[in-house]
């Protein structure tokens, strides 16, 4: 018995030791590439350029996609047919505290040394930090694998994915004009009307919006359900970026306007101290919720409003969309082509599926209530008198409203620091709003947070 145990333990130790060093072996054996066309011999070709020009383009067996949530994965699995013999490997890391960027940076910096099947082929990036990747050698020119931008794409989505010299590195599958999504029954009670045009007339400036907030409060409602709900409406209208040319931190008047508004809203009880992604906020979307307005683009329906769609406790059909006090856009997911990908044909295929394949795009609008990045498709829906969103709204043609809003979107004043600065400002101020600290301390914590997160940002004397 003892002997058996001893042998077992010894074996375990040996396995443990070899497991550390042996990491490279399986990956190198997986490296040989096979040709995409079935039937051709799977001879390992380390230098694809040697292949004769007529031969089918080589394609790696594994297609690696880095993402920070499951949103695109859902559409990908629904609408894209993966070529035979290719496995898609999703690496999903939540973006909180910059975790996704950290993970992605690590992988990209290691891209050159990674085995072909471990290399990132495509990764997703959000408006707040896409610049960091676009303006780097880690993303590749989409024309290098034969994809051409088409005029049906929104101009700003191309600009966002292009480096300063205009080389485009990816595409967006969505366009994200955003508005105010309000509860009809509460609007009726507070404003005496639930007709979109009349509601819009009552909240088309921030002054009017504030006045309605007071009326809502008087009737026992909240204007918004999160202190940060209106943040994007302000921050995406900034006239200057978070840092100037010399990396000095600067506060845009829009950011300070948001801070002023929120301070008042919290003081007067017009909103809640919950963060924009918190459950306390999304619980307000149930039928029993007491909140009039939510701020969001088309992706907000499925990503944030699942409570409103709850069959038992939700309130589908009690919602309408209007422009609100200030036109803005929020977020957006870009698909970027990673340098070193061995699956160029598939990249081209995916980009086409989600930007020009009208069958897929029509379905995405009709079935998934997305606002897709194709002006022809959305225009057709906007002008279609028979189209209406019944998944959440009361059958209103929301695409028509988004279509108008999307015309004004401009891509400017973005920095690589946006995600963590926007997130950090909200997190630190939340402590002021919930009463843990005074505003001065909250701002001090924010400055300390910047110094720690981005040592190269110069913080002005405060």
């Amino acid at each position, binding site marked *: 018995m003892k002997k058996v145990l001893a042998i077992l333990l010894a074996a375990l130790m040996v396995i443990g030791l070899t497991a550390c060093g042996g990491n490279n072996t399986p990956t190198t054996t997986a490296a040989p590439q096979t040709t995409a066309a079935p039937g051709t011999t799977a001879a390992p070709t380390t230098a694809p350029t040697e292949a004769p020009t007529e031969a089918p383009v080589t394609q790696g067996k594994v297609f690696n996609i880095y993402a920070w949530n499951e949103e695109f994965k859902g559409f990908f699995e629904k609408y894209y047919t993966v070529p035979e013999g290719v496995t898609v490997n999703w690496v999903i890391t939540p973006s909180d505290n910059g975790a996704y960027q950290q993970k992605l940076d690590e992988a990209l910096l290691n891209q050159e040394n990674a085995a072909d099947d471990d290399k990132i082929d495509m990764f997703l990036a959000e408006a707040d930090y896409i610049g960091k990747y676009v303006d780097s050698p880690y993303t590749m020119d989409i024309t290098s694998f034969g994809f051409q931008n088409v005029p049906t794409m929104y101009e700003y989505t191309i600009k966002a994915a292009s480096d300063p010299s205009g080389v485009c590195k990816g595409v967006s599958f969505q366009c994200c004009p955003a508005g105010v999504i309000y509860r009809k029954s509460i609007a009726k009670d507070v404003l005496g009307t639930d007709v979109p045009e009349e509601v819009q007339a009552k909240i088309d400036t921030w002054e009017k919006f504030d006045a309605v907030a007071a009326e809502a409060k008087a009737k026992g409602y909240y204007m918004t359900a999160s202190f940060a709900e209106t943040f994007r409406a302000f921050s995406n209208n900034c006239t200057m970026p978070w840092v100037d040319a010399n990396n000095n931190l600067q506060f845009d008047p829009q950011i300070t306007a948001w801070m002023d508004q929120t301070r008042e809203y919290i003081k007067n009880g017009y909103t809640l101290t919950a963060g924009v992604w918190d*459950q306390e906020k999304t619980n307000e979307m149930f039928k029993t919720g007491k909140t009039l307005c939510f701020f969001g683009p088309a992706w907000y329906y499925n990503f944030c409003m699942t409570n409103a769609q709850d069959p038992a406790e939700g309130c589908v059909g009690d919602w309408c969309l209007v422009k609100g006090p200030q036109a803005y856009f929020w977020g957006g997911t870009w698909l970027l082509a990673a340098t070193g990908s061995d699956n160029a044909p598939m990249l081209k295929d995916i980009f086409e599926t989600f930007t020009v394949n009208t069958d897929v795009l029509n379905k995405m609008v009709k079935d998934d209530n997305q606002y897709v990045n194709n002006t022809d498709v959305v225009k057709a829906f906007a002008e279609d008198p028979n189209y209406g969103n019944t998944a959440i709204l009361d059958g209103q043609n929301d695409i028509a409203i988004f279509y108008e809003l999307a015309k004004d979107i401009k891509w400017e004043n973005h920095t690589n620091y946006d995600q963590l600065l926007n997130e950090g400002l909200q997190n630190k101020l939340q402590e002021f709003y919930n009463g843990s600290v005074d505003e001065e301390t909250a701002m001090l914590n924010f400055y300390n947070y910047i110094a720690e997160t981005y040592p190269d940002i110069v913080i002005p004397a405060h």
Partner: protein
Amino acid sequence: MSKKDSKTLGPQKSVSYAKWGYIFILPFFIVYIVFTLAPQFLTIYNSFFENYRSGLKQIGPNFVGLDNYKALFTADPSGTVRILKYAANTLILWIAGAVPQFVIALLLAIFFTSYRLNIKGQGFFKTVIYMPNLIMAAAFSMLFYTLFSRVGPIQGLLENWGVVDKSFDFFSVRITVRGMIALMNFLMWFGNTTIVLMAGIMGIDQALFESATIDGANSVQVFFRVTMPLLMPIFVYCLITAMIGGIQMFDVPQVLTNGKGVPNEFTRTLVMYLNGYLTTKNYGMGGAISVIIFIITGGLSAVVYKMLSAQYKDPERQHRQRKGNVI
């Protein structure tokens, strides 16, 4: 083997097995030097450099001398030296969890090993008290977060009973957040400590307890005069390892507060601070903080060791020393 023995055995060539001992422990030392000692020196080396990443761009390494340490100990405009604040947080959180952990663990260890109580079903209890340690700290923290969040069941219950009003938030009050972290650490570690201390107590000769009882000692006297002095080496070991773990406290407060250390960074520990610098792969500042943590750990361990081992020296040796002094 003494000389006398080898003489009686005749001119037989002696075989030294000592070198095998060294060969057998060699792998440990190699692994230790490569994976622990070398990185430790590298950390110290790195702490003298400016070395981080801005986006995907590498900045440095540039030699900056002691600038990183200076930055760490510079007060912010409110007059707070942040690293000291975080060090204080860490110690408070650890002590708040460790005091009940050791008191309860000692009590349980004594109950379980007492020949007079002779508790039935020990295996069951030992397993149960060890259970919380098997749960991942992150999962445990998520559980607590879910229980105590603004929309959690505890808040709802207390609101219904009228104990707190709707604006109350467990995570905006210093004592509740710290209390939760201490409670979690206590729950996770008291079972482990109990089992180690039990092993220590069982290593003590039962006859000593019996004879003390026969001599008329009550259980409190037995505990302080017999159990504790003999248990001291194990106890000090437990305390110091627990302290090292405590100074490196990270996962529980990190997950519970989502890395924010709410309220007002009063639950932000040293390692959470270190983790903040990892966003930009800041090896310079990270190294400097690590060195500080190393110094704190070493210093505190030395103090605890000195204090406790001075108080409870091996009684027999103390006795002999005293005799020696008299002579």
